């Protein structure tokens, strides 16, 4: 499989870039941040994005999607990183739809995937419980009751929590032992009795929140995948999530780099353009190389997903770690090279740093993935 884009993919990239820069530029994000409403995202914009086929980009045609593959999804996320577009794309398309695609029963797929594809259904994963990503330590309990399960516990950092229609909830259904991981995934509608959502205000001004499950009863049909065997499905979903987030971080990295490059070419000090200082040139050249490496590893990871390779966990952690490392260096350097103006809220640079930080942390940060990479490689 080639690591260059084919014609169809290049067309998608162009059209995504055109769409976002017209309909959802950074100024739209600023507007949203400065005038927060109850939704925290633009429903009309999301409907337009769905109409472009983006909400169903990875969903098979039989379930109403366009089945364009992960590379397509990655290209859209990359462009959204450039414009900081707020939408349920990460929570619902990258994660929710992937969980159903990979683990849903035929009935679940038939019921839910078409609604995702039209943009009607917001369906995030409710995963985290503590300050550090660690799904294996899940303690939210689902205990068997008559014809179903009863959930008790609290999830934090749930993306799009307060606008979600349905949650895919990670729960402990038995103790971990040699034969099973003891984890399971459940579909829980947000209006089910006992579900309470607490909206949180995050660094990147996006939607997230805590969800409390208090004696929440769901039917046996709500289980996604096998009971007690949720870990493997979850890891596959998370691998896709890592790679998608890496694509978004790639978009952020490129945008931040280009902003800095332009600034270095415009800004004069001591009578010359600051971009003529060799110390700054070398730093920019090194960052350029890093971005090229990032492009390649993200492209390759998306390729591997599309090809259904089985080593994808290793590549997913490699990509996330590499992108976290690069975007951190890049955003720090970008502020430093911009000087005072980069520190002001009037200038857009701060938005990228904030969004990058949240995306870095989502589903495991640099340290988590570097450690996981070693673990998966057996050392």
């Amino acid at each position: 499989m080639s690591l260059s884009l084919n014609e169809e993919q290049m067309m998608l990239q162009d059209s995504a870039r055109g769409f976002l820069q017209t309909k959802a530029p950074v100024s739209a994000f600023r507007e949203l941040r400065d005038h927060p409403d109850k939704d925290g995202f633009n429903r009309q914009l999301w409907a337009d994005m769905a109409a472009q086929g983006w909400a169903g980009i990875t969903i098979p045609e039989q379930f109403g999607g366009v089945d364009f593959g992960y590379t397509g999804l990655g290209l859209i996320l990359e462009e959204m990183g450039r414009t900081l577009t707020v939408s349920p794309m990460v929570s619902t398309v990258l994660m929710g739809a992937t969980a159903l695609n990979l683990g849903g029963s035929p009935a679940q797929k038939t019921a839910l995937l078409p609604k995702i594809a039209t943009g009607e259904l917001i369906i995030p994963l409710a995963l985290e419980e503590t300050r550090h990503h660690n799904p294996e330590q899940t303690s939210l309990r689902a205990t068997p009751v008559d014809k179903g399960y009863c959930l008790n516990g609290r999830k934090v950092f749930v993306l799009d929590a307060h606008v979600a229609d349905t949650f895919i909830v990670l729960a402990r259904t038995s103790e971990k032992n040699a034969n099973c991981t003891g984890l399971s995934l459940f579909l829980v509608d947000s209006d089910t009795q006992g579900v309470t959502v607490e909206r949180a205000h995050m660094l990147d001004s996006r939607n997230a929140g805590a969800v409390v499950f208090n004696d929440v009863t769901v039917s046996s049909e709500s289980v996604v995948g096998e009971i007690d065997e949720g870990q493997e499905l979850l890891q596959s979903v998370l691998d896709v999530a890592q790679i998608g987030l890496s694509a978004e971080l790639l978009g952020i990295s490129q945008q931040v780099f280009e902003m800095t490059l332009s600034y270095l070419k415009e800004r004069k000090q001591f009578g010359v353009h600051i971009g003529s200082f060799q110390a700054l040139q070398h730093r920019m050249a090194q960052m350029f190389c890093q971005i090229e490496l990032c492009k390649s590893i993200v492209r390759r990871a998306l390729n591997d997903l599309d090809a259904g390779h089985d080593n994808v966990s290793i590549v997913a952690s490699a990509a996330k770690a590499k992108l976290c490392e690069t975007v951190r260096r890049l955003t720090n350097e970008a502020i430093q090279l911009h000087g005072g103006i980069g520190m002001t809220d009037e200038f857009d640079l701060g938005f990228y740093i904030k969004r990058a930080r949240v995306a870095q942390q989502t589903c495991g940060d640099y340290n988590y993935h570097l450690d996981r990479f070693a673990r998966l490689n057996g050392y």
Partner: protein
Amino acid sequence: MLELDEFRRETRHWLEQNCPAEMRLPIREEDDDCWGGMYPTFKNEAQELWLDRMSERGWTTPAWPRSIGGGGLSKEQSEILHQELVRIKARPALLSFGIWMLGPVLLKYGSEAQKARFLPDIVRGKVRWCQGYSEPGSGSDLASLQTRAEDRGDHYLVNGSKIWTSYGDKADWVFCLVRTDNAAPKHEGISFLLFDMKSPGVTTKPITLISGKSPFSQLFFDDVRVPKENLVGEINRGWEIAKYLLTHEREMIGDMGTQSVSLSELAKEHIGLRNDMLVDPILRTDISRFTIDEMAFSDTLKRAADEAKAGQEMGAVSSMFKYFGTELNMSRFELMLSVTGNYSLGWEGEEFDEGNLPRAWLRSKGNAIEGGTSEIQLNIIAKRVLGLPSE
């Protein structure tokens, strides 16, 4: 030695009698700080009392001469006073750019009349000063400043703008670098002026940072009339004063590197141990690396002080401290974020302590820019200490 012991005993006694109990509690909120000024807002009586008592003895400025209200203490006595204040955990009686920045300038460059007029009010916190240095567009090239002061016979007419002025909206007076000769080479047409922020034509606009609200303002000067007697030092010789102040500022900012929350303790609490090792092995390594650098840096501060005492100069100390101190401070915040994980992503709400940590992290990014960028410090070290050529 006996004299110093006596001084310590007396000081300790006086502080115990005169420092109100409230002034020995840790500083919790912004308004626990006392900045004085013409229209001061004291949080409570104790704050005002503490300022009055300390400034009456001149101990807000212990080493300044008695003649202008200072404490007139020797270096050793000042050090003892400092130690005794630390001992009882006393809050500073007064925070002031007048004390930290303008005072040293006036003592060195001011006329007798200026000293008599301005210094006593600084000692007593009666006038709050701000600094007019950077300009939009000047950045690291401070000497490229464009704010003009035209000679109009009995006064200067000032037009221009200053940026990054801390508490510009709360200050009574400003000390300011202005261009008084457009034809001269850029370093030779700069003068140092003082003026009242209530003068007609002065306006301020607050600056919001990526971390949220900030103490910074932009100042605008539109035909501001400044009496000629308010010129400090010689006309067109202000750059010398500016350099003197910059060195001073660098040292203050560089000091930030030596804060003392233990990262390893924080990590143990947030991340936990397995087999006596932090569960996150990468963080464990990063914390060790950082802590060793922090040790080496604080040893270097001590060594510089000891060597200075012994007459063995290190050279470019202030640039090195500014550069490395801010690097350390920024690393510390990066590590704090790693340690606290998702918690550090909260921006508002009690649950997240109103985003104090990520805001401080974002704010720290400015450390290597303000007070002379890291690049400027490295240039200074390369040229002045290492003697590398600039062809």
